[in-house]
């Protein structure tokens, strides 16, 4: 795949999970985008944000007309999202391996502030190659950050794979885990609304080319 094709594949891989999140799971709307008690969604895998922008537009966070000239000089929408430019985008991302550590801090901050808000972070299976994720996986479990959910889009992009499966990598550190079909909206919804008293990883499998 070329670079563009990889980003398109990244977007196509995340679209179903993003839609279910914003449509049925997250407690955040354009009106509550600055509410300290909102749920927060962190797109760690900033690659291929077209799906993210489309969902944000459909839900009213951004004007649909901004989609037409994305990546242009005056557009707030780039190939990697910028939280300063787009209201409702919780983190600026693009460089891989940053979202999960930040999400641990965000969830911890919500807990410290006694906020009912939850933190959801989306990472890719290829992105999990970055060592910073594994620091954060361990820390989240040790700190018992139960209001944190990591969604791993497993589209088989990891160069060397994950022997034993991705969920096992989280489970061995003490996370609650689930594995689902990332195209099945009901399965995504069910998985993302399961109660958990420890950090929770949902591995959403996406078949190549599907």
């Amino acid at each position: 795949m070329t670079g563009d094709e990889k980003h398109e594949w990244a977007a196509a891989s995340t679209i179903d999970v993003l839609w279910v999140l914003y449509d049925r799971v997250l407690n955040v709307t354009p009106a509550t985008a600055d509410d300290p008690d909102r749920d927060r969604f962190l797109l760690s895998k900033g690659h291929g944000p077209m799906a993210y922008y489309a969902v944000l537009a459909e839900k009213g966070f951004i004007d649909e007309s901004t989609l037409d000239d994305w990546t242009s000089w005056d557009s707030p929408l780039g190939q990697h999202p910028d939280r300063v430019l787009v209201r409702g985008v919780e983190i600026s991302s693009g460089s891989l391996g940053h979202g999960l550590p930040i999400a641990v801090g965000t969830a911890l901050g919500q807990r410290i502030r006694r906020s009912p808000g939850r933190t959801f972070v989306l990472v890719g299976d290829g992105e999990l190659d970055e060592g910073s994720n594994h620091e954060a996986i361990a820390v989240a479990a040790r700190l018992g950050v139960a209001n944190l959910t990591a969604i791993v889009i497993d589209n088989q992009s990891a160069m060397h794979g994950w022997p034993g499966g991705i969920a096992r990598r989280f489970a061995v550190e003490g996370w609650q885990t689930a594995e689902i079909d990332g195209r099945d909206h009901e399965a995504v919804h069910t998985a993302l609304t399961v109660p958990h008293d420890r950090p929770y990883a949902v591995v959403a499998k996406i078949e190549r080319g599907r």
Partner: protein
Amino acid sequence: MMTTMREAFIKTVNEELDNDPRVAVVTAVISSSQFPQDRERVVDVGIREQTMVGVAGGLALAGLRPVVHSYAPFLVERPYEQIKLDIGHQDVGAVFVSIGGSYDDPVWGRTHQSPGDVALFDTLPGWTVHVPGHPDEVTPLLRQALKDDNRVYVRLSLRENSQAYPVGEGFTALRHGKRGVVLAVGPMLDRVLKAVDSENADVTVLYAATVRPFDSDGLLAAVRETDHADVMVVEPYLEGTSAHLISEALQLIPHRVRCIGVKRHAELRNYGTAEDHDAAHDLDVVGLGSAVRSFFRG
């Protein structure tokens, strides 16, 4: 018993943990025993410096005021991209506090030396940088930093001056002369004053415990009161770190600049003492005196 800068930092932050519900502390083992680990706002992530900074960024996004602390190379160099992206690019604030200076304890070798820390922060916009020269300067600088929401780096060291000076915005003129200006940063001040005395140099001596933002107006005003626009800057970190700012401040007048600091030309692999390293970098009184003599000659 003398208090060190590190002790002043720990005492101040512990007090602010009690006073300000926004303040949180994030460490990666180093100094963690000095903060109450049973407090929710005190987080030790283990030896995981990338996540230390990432967690701090997340805490800031959630409305807290994180203090991030470690030995300088592990606070600044190892997680540099996290500082750039998880703090700066997210447009959030935090207070980074390092210990170790450039080579406070050189028996540990190069891995524990960080003369390039301030230069690295200079590559990132929006950082305030404090380089206190005495433990009594640490508390007021920190208290102000904790009140604000900006990005602050506080560089602590075992090297210190014999007395504290008032801290705040701008450089402080400690001496007035006509031959030029010497800007002494943080713990370099005592050695600069001795070197100037030893050479009977008729120079203005400015003291800086805050180097970013750089007090360009203060420097320019001091230069205008001399007969020569000759400026020597003595910094306890990489030589020339502030050269670009001095050039910018004096761009409208012909001037000469001499930058003194930890030398760039080679990696020094010797162990020894901090004083040994001072001598090797010409940052002892003898070396500084020689520099003053040659630069302000005539």
